[in-house]
């Protein structure tokens, strides 16, 4: 079993990664303020890491943040309509890049999966949630260890 995520990453490191991603993708002058969170009822995107440490990097944004975030990343005018697919795509890409950068700080070699949106798997005990605020919107970046898959007990078919 690998070391727990709490001993591999600290909040400052996750915040530094997120700040760099935000500055490059959301906007050069966009500031991610550490603290706040967790987001109780938001939209999530995540990406899996598999290697000596396996788990997920999950980005959860408050409902109020997702539209602003998509507009900022795509540099859309306020009057332009947002496609739902673009909102998911932006969240997936942010999670993907956050995951790739977090992965590079963890013991390797490891591989990164394809990003997804929806309801992420529930975290177990190996979890580091890092809260932040962007333009007043709360968001959370959660690095969570893989929870064990449920044990499957095959049944034996008895033929008469």
């Amino acid at each position, binding site marked *: 079993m690998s070391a727990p995520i709490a001993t591999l990453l600290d909040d400052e490191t996750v915040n530094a990664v997120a700040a760099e*991603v935000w500055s*490059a*993708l959301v906007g050069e002058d966009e500031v991610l303020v550490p603290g706040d969170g967790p987001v109780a009822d938001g939209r999530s995107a995540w990406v899996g890491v598999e290697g000596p440490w396996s788990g997920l990097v999950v980005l959860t944004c408050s409902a109020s943040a997702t539209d602003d975030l998509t507009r900022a990343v*795509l540099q859309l005018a306020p009057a332009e309509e947002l496609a739902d697919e673009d909102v998911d795509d932006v969240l997936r890409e942010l999670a*993907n890049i956050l995951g*790739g950068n977090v992965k590079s700080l963890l013991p390797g070699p490891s591989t990164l999966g394809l990003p997804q949106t929806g309801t992420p798997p529930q975290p177990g005990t190996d979890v580091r949630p890092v809260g932040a605020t962007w333009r007043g919107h709360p968001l959370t970046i959660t690095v969570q260890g893989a929870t064990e898959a449920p044990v499957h007990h095959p049944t034996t078919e008895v033929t008469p």
Partner: protein
Amino acid sequence: MKILVADDSRVMRQIVIRTLRQAGWDDVDVVEAVDGADALVKIAEEDPDLVLSDWNMPEMTGIDCLRELRARGSAVPFGFVTSEGSPEMRETAAEAGALFLIAKPFTADTFRDQLGSVLA
């Protein structure tokens, strides 16, 4: 001048194209591909001067696309723009024939540094 941008994310293709423009290549023709398999087809059709490809994509990954291109005898200049840039990935990319690997997040300066000599 023509550049093919392969990424399964439409948003990321848009950001790559925007960064190309910001880096000074505002008059290049851009062809978009949604994964490695689509890139293979469009590279054969469009004969681009450079391919900028994501690594992790459904259907066919960027590295498999590059290997297939080289196996077919194509020498098209190829670089990765991907969300991770571990030493192992950089080595794998170089061995397969990639000219560079740009890790996301990137800036227009990164593009100028890496693409400058290829598109000179």
